[in-house]
């Protein structure tokens, strides 16, 4: 054996392996079994959660096998790739001969049909030629246009339909390949990220979910308004944002989005997914002097010291916390800040918005209360770009259509045999089919029964 023969042998063997249904079944089974792991073991959780749950040793093994992000692991992707290659090779292997079969016409061989499914023989009036002519009109609708063949004194009518349905399975396989291609295109050229935009503001960068890297949109998204509404039970009813696309200096598109109704622009989609309140940048504070009893409202910015009248020192608001806990008690939205007294002594203050008298408990020289501030929401947008989605959707349509053709349509051949008989003619229906014999049996039985009802010979009824 020379080198070329060995190579050819290897190629043939590989071709044989990759074009086998055995491989498809093995890969499908492996995909089914391994997919279970990822539904039982939480995916992409924090490392310490896994350590706590499985211990150090098991964690290392599972981590090595990428079990914690298994659907994106090399071995799972490899299985999917294997399925894809299998599908391609299978189709290349079988499609040419399938096309050849589809290109042919019906074989008018009565013996093939006599071995296939057969209905009961009916008696009809008239010579075989007359009966055959009548039947070729009557049965054209349920069968197809007939070809007449004479066999001795008898007449044979042949018809077939659905030869093309033999290609249905390739539509299904093509659909799966489209799904895989769409997934691949999406993961190569698309991204998934988020943007948090404060009401009244614009943004043009997306923060990616996996890496925290940022991607510029190439245009700006402005959020004009955000609102959340609730049912009487307190459960959320609707989140909505009014978004405006600003591109090349002008407003090009505006849309009110809700969950299930995103904004799409230039292949990028913006989904309502989250919301929150934005800490204010400034607020007004009311300082009440213990000595004089006077109250002074003063506006100030967070992070900047505010001089307190009567020379009582300065107050610097530092943070705005939505849900602050004061000694273990939830006190709601709160401003945290530092009060610097006349002598230079510093005191940390917590000022809950809802309880203006809170600071009095400190019994200091001056009491601080939070006055008015601007309360704004930000809308949390899920941002995705997936150029593969149209491949996937086309695949979806092919998959449904292909499954329907493959499962519920078939290549059906019919033969109607009309032979001379004492009363005129004897008629028998035959059918052959490439799948679902039971269905064909039903078709032949029904058509025979219908034919009998419609063409019943009157004498027979008299005899009865």
């Amino acid at each position, binding site marked *: 054996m020379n080198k070329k023969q060995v190579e050819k042998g290897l190629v043939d063997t590989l071709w044989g392996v990759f074009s086998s*249904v*055995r491989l*498809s*079944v093995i890969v*499908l*089974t492996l*995909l*089914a079994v391994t*997919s*279970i792991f*990822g*539904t*039982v073991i*939480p*995916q992409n959780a924090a490392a310490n959660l896994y350590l706590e749950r499985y211990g150090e040793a098991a964690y290392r093994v599972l981590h090595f096998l990428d079990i914690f992000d298994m*659907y994106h692991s090399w071995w799972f992707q490899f299985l999917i790739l294997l399925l894809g290659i299998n599908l391609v090779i299978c189709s290349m292997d079988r499609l040419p001969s399938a096309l050849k079969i589809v290109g042919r016409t019906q074989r008018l061989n009565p013996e093939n049909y006599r071995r296939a499914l057969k209905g009961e023989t009916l008696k009809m009036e008239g010579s075989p030629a007359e009966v055959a002519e009548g039947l070729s009109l009557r049965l054209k609708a349920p069968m197809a246009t007939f070809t007449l063949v004479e066999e001795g004194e008898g007449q044979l009518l042949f018809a077939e339909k659905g030869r093309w349905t033999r290609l249905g399975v390739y539509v299904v396989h093509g659909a799966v390949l489209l799904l895989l291609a769409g*997934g691949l295109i999406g993961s190569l050229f698309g991204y*998934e990220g988020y943007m948090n935009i404060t009401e009244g503001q614009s943004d043009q960068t997306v923060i990616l979910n996996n890496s925290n890297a940022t991607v510029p949109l190439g245009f700006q998204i402005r959020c004009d308004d955000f609102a959340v509404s609730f*049912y009487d*039970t307190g*459960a*959320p*009813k*609707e*989140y909505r944002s009014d978004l405006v696309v600003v591109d090349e200096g002008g407003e090009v598109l505006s849309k009110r989005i*809700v*969950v*299930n*109704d*995103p904004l799409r622009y230039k292949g990028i*989609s913006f*989904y309502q*997914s989250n919301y929150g309140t934005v800490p204010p940048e400034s607020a007004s504070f009311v300082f009440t002097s213990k000595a004089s009893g006077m109250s002074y409202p003063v506006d100030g910015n967070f992070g900047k010291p505010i001089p307190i009248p009567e020379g009582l020192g300065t107050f610097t608001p530092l943070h705005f916390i939505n849900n602050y806990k004061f000694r273990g008690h939830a006190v709601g939205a709160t401003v945290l800040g530092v009060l610097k007294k006349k002598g230079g002594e510093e005191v940390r203050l917590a000022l809950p918005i809802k309880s203006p008298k809170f600071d009095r408990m400190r019994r200091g020289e001056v009491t601080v209360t939070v006055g008015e501030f601007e309360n704004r929401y930000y809308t949390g947008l*899920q*941002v*995705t770009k*997936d150029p593969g*989605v149209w491949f*996937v*959707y086309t695949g*979806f349509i092919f*998959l*449904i259509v292909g*499954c*329907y053709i493959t*499962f*519920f349509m078939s290549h059906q051949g019919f033969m109607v045999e009309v032979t001379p008989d004492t009363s005129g003619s004897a008629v028998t229906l035959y059918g052959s089919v490439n*799948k*679902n*014999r*039971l*269905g064909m049996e*039903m078709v032949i039985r029904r058509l025979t029964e219908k034919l009998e009802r419609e063409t019943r010979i009157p004498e027979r009824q008299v005899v009865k």
Partner: protein
Amino acid sequence: MTSSLLISIATFVYGLSALLYFCAWIFKTEKLDLPATGLAATGLGINTAGFLLRWSESYAIGIGRIPLSNLYESLVFYGLAIAALYLILERLMKIRIAGGFALTFSFLALAYASLSPNVGSQIRPLMPALKSNWLTAHVMTCFVGYAAFTLSFALSLLFLFRSGKEDSDGSAFDIDETSHQMILLGFLFLSIGIITGAVWANSAWGRYWGWDPKETWSLITWFIYASLIHVRLVRGWNGKKTAILSLVGFAAVMFTYFGVNLLPGLHSYGA
């Protein structure tokens, strides 16, 4: 008259119908055929009325949505789908033999819905993510698929029960073939169910697939039945081998339906 009362009555009628089917089968009498089928159809009618009444009840309390969004409502629809599909099958294929098992499943689905303390029957408003026209298409196609797989499971069980006996009338062939037809129907509808779910997910969250446990389990079920279809159509497996595979497939269906609720994920509102 409330919808839950109708569902309770339908449960009872389904149970009785299943009993008659089993009696007809065991005692080999045709006298019970008509009453069994009649009761099954009556049960289906009452079940459907219950479904429709619940729909109108939700409008009466100002929520107004199709009842397909929690475990109770899905069970009611599952029972309905099984009974309807079985009756169609009985008419088309003239196979009465699966009736006892099929109606038992309808009975169990409705009994579980009405009796289990874990299943809340209150009509609640929809959370924002469920407000979509895809809800109806997604849930209905999934459950027609589940119902077809359930009938295939019933027929496969029957096939395995009878496999010891001699097959004189060729009915084993019919059972095997009918079971396969149900698998094909189930596979088509499972595919459409997964697809409508994917399109919906893409319109709600911006991705058509996210490896959520319910998604993954429906895909596992899809893989199992895809394997079955391949070994049957290409490698010529049938009878006992495919009947056993059909049982495995149905176990996956049941886990997709109920088991996944034990795992965390997006579909947890189904619990």
